[in-house]
């Protein structure tokens, strides 16, 4: 008998009711198919892992002291980051391991440059839940539930509550030669199905005005979504635009000359991913970062 189709096994792994009685019989007797199913189920289980309840321990302060010394870091960073003032783990860390002289929590933490970026941004999805729960929460010896519970609402990722909007894609925007502006683009889908592109771009020596485009991967086709003012903006993506066909986000420097075409002078650009595709059976990667110049 033929093996079960991998599509069917995928749906089964996701908990869908799929397949016939004959398929179920086959699965019960076929080690290979059962193995494939288990592999898919493992992926699902790990991807939806609820981090609450998994406790982490922390290294002692001598570990950071050794790293600090070995790398010759700035004296401003001498304090163990795990005991940084304001972080909830202060008391716990102090109780577990006596603080080392000169590395007490009093030392001022060095400001982190990216902190000037928009920290209020919500970036829901897996990462956020993981970072919020596992990383911060357990640094304190807390569980994810402890930290997230503090906030009064569950984490967006692992919970099954309906999201208000879905992040469809996200990409860093990197400057092109002669430009400095960088930032991020994010595509969200609102509950009504509308897709919105949000751009954040740092200051750039743009001579004209900045226009936001989505483009084909070879940049032969560009669609203008609007003008970017003060480095931030949200633009509605027309329903007829298939993002698989227009995977590139591009910000151009447009002269005040009334010409509606792309100026060929791009400030920054991004695609939702730039990971090279190596697997033959992997999906076609619509989203990637182009390397060539803009061709009219």
């Amino acid at each position: 008998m033929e093996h079960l189709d991998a599509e069917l096994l995928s749906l089964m792994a996701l908990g869908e009711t799929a397949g016939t009685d004959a398929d179920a019989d086959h699965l019960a007797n076929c080690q290979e198919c059962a193995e494939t199913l288990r592999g898919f189920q493992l992926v699902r289980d790990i991807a939806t892992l609820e981090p609450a309840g998994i406790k982490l321990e922390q290294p002692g302060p001598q570990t950071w002291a050794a790293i600090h010394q070995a790398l010759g870091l700035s004296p401003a960073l001498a304090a163990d980051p795990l005991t940084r003032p304001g972080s909830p783990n202060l008391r716990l860390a102090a109780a577990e391991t006596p603080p080392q002289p000169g590395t007490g929590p009093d030392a001022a933490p060095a400001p982190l440059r990216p902190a000037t970026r928009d920290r209020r941004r919500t970036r829901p999805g897996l990462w956020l839940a993981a970072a919020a729960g596992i990383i911060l929460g357990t640094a304190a010896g807390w569980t994810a539930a402890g930290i997230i519970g503090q906030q009064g609402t569950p984490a967006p990722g692992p919970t099954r509550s309906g999201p208000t909007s879905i992040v469809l894609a996200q990409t860093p925007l990197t400057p092109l030669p002669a430009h400095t502006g960088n930032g991020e683009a994010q595509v969200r889908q609102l509950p009504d199905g509308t897709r919105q592109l949000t751009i954040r771009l740092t200051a750039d020596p743009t001579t004209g005005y900045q226009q936001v485009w989505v483009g084909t991967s070879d940049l032969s086709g560009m669609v203008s979504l609007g003008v970017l003012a003060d480095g931030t903006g949200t633009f509605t993506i027309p329903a007829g635009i298939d993002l698989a066909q227009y995977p590139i986000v591009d910000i151009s420097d447009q002269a005040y000359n009334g010409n509606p075409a792309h100026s060929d002078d791009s400030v920054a650009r991004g695609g939702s991913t730039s990971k090279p595709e190596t697997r033959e059976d992997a999906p076609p990667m619509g989203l990637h970062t182009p390397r060539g110049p803009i061709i009219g």
Partner: protein
Amino acid sequence: MEAAANHDWDPGFDQAFAGGDEGALAEAYRRLSPLVYTLALRSLGDRSAADDVTQEVFIRAWKSRTTYRPEAARLPAWLVGITRNAINDALSERARQRHLEQAAVQLLPEPSVEPEEASVEAVADRLILDDELEHLGDPQQSILRLAFYDDLTHDQISSRLNLPLGTVKSHIRRSLIRLRTRLEVEHGTP
């Protein structure tokens, strides 16, 4: 969704780290050293060795920051990879030492260490999968997110995203294979 926004891992950290911002290293340590340390502790069984691995991971990471590409992997996933390498190195070194000494002086795991290895490994794996998922691209990524986190069937995803059923099913299959492969690579022999 506002709930945990302040704890978000800003992609700016990745960029700052790659750019040599020492503050980003400290931030990475603050957020990730417990995971690195716990992974090492569960594998190696003693705190001193876990401290050594933690040191090694962050020193190694900082020294290789010029080869780190933020667009290819988020910093946490990258650090998990370095951690697993460092743990394997420590295990190999330990085996080598043991072989040299021909002695059974293997340190026993401290009794206080609970055998939670599997769940901590799963946490690390989740970071890896989160990273892979971010790189799936559209619409694969949104399809899987809807399936994983909103419990939608492929039928519902098809209508939600206005994509043909066959396309949705095929994307699910390919994406699951890709994520599974990433896990296999992650746990492959170094």
